């Protein structure tokens, strides 16, 4: 039987495995033994990770390592795919989003998501795309909507480019603008956490640079988790990096430490380009 001391000791061990700068910090998100997959085929094989608030955490790893599945578990999007299964806990501010009484719709309102490919709603204008999360949930107050449109578009550094054509179709914008539109759309519902699943993989270098600059601005107000298989991008934008391999968390540390002085051999081989 576990005694109080055992628990304390366990906690200390867990703390010791954390990057020094995170000891004692209340995590925004914490996963405990998070497993996910399809049927009994587990893509994620038990992830324990603490994600600090108001920081950019990169989730990096080769294709098929489960990094996308991981973020899709954090807003309960994974379970929408037929046959998907999830086990374990994911605590948002200490509350398990997979609790039996947790409402996935309420969870998703607190956690925004930006997808790999820009996916604005093709039937909606730029204006309506931005406030889609509000109007689809019943918000009708024109003043509030107008304010949300400007505020979110400014937040996504898109306002100056589109302010004169808000009634144009969202699909009429360039790829990079569409992705920033999708970021504005995610910001408009005022989430606490922003999940970004390889948000630049479909964009050219200029658009990528803009999004990366935006990410570093956004971390003042949001906890950001960004999936990337691009090492340079992880090192440019993130404060912390988690390295996934074959569904397992291999290493988690401050980005600078992980890149310059990795503890695990797998990590070192990956960042030096020996595989992946």
């Amino acid at each position: 039987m576990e005694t109080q001391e055992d628990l304390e000791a366990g906690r200390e061990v867990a703390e010791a495995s954390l990057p020094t700068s995170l000891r004692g910090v209340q995590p925004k998100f914490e996963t405990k033994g998070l497993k996910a997959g399809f049927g009994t085929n587990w893509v994620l094989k038990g992830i324990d990770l603490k994600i600090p608030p108001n920081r950019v955490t990169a989730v990096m790893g080769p294709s098929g390592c489960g990094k996308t599945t991981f973020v899709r578990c954090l807003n309960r999007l994974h379970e929408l795919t037929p046959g998907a299964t999830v086990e374990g806990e994911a605590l948002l501010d200490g509350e398990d989003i997979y609790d039996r009484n947790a409402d996935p719709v309420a969870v998703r309102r607190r956690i925004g998501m930006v997808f790999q490919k820009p996916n604005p709603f093709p039937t909606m204008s730029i204006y309506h795309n931005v406030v889609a999360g509000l109007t689809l949930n019943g918000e009708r107050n024109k003043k509030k909507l107008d304010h949300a449109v400007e505020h979110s578009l400014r937040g996504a550094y898109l306002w100056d480019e589109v302010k004169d054509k808000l009634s144009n179709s969202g699909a009429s914008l360039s790829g990079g603008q569409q992705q920033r539109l999708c970021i504005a759309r995610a910001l408009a519902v005022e989430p606490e956490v922003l999940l970004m699943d390889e948000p630049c993989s479909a964009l050219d270098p200029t658009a990528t640079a803009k999004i990366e600059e935006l990410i570093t601005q956004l971390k003042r107000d949001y906890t950001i988790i960004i999936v990337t298989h691009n090492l340079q991008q992880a090192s440019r934008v993130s404060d912390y990096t988690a390295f996934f391999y074959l569904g397992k968390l291999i290493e988690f540390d401050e980005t600078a430490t992980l890149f310059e002085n990795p503890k695990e051999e797998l990590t070192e081989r990956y960042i030096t380009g020996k595989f992946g």
Partner: protein
Amino acid sequence: MTSIFTSGRRQSWRRIFDRIMKVLILLSVVIAIIPLFFVVADVVVQGLPAISLAFFTKNPPSPLAGYGGILNGIEGSLLMVGMGTLIAVPLGVGAGIYFSEWPESRLSFLSSFTNDVLAEFPTIVVGLFVYSLVVAPTRTFSAVAGAVALAIIMLPIIARTTEESLKIVPVTLREASMALGVPRWKTIFRVVISTGKSGLATGILLGIARATGETAPLVVTAGYLNFPPTGLFQQTASVPYIIYNFGTAGYPNWTTVAWGAALVLVAFMLILNLSVKFFIGRRSTGVRAEI
């Protein structure tokens, strides 16, 4: 090494073969169009003498007494196709949504299969089924019975096209909406249907076109009356029934009335099909946004 210029025998034979295949394909297209052309031409030539304004405002004539009109059939058809559409659209669209959005459920699989069978069902059997369901208990042929039969015929068409047009809405749009904290039913109604609405409209128009031309089920459910309908539970005429009834009677003026009715029906179908093309065209050229 072969030259890129045609000189050898092989290359010139290949060119000839290419030509022959092209001509054969063109020929098959022409042969396929010929019957259609003759049918339409025949309908126009034979039906045109009957057409005048009166053809749309008068009821059918007595034997050997001019051409009259087909007002009773037009009003009866509008009434029955209209009621049938009102019944079939909510049920068909609902079923289509279910097939598309919950494909993994067993009920969805079963009813989707049933829907396919229903779509291939002989329409006279549908008519006889409605005869026992509506006509026998109410003891009269009626517009209601006709509308129910037409609704059953339209239902699988609308359900299938709804399913197909919703299935092609990218899953990324559903996920974008769900990720904003929008409940699933709202995502379906406000995002998925809104994106696939031109396909839905196409399905409904195709269903209407199909129902408007149906004759057999109306013979055993709606019957015929020489006047426009005045109630829902009385015999009710329809345009296809007029073609069938007057075309086989043998009086020369009635025969012309039948041709005229056929021309009206063909013209209506043409308009419906052009509207379908219009809707599909709008879908492919991109969707306009409104603020």
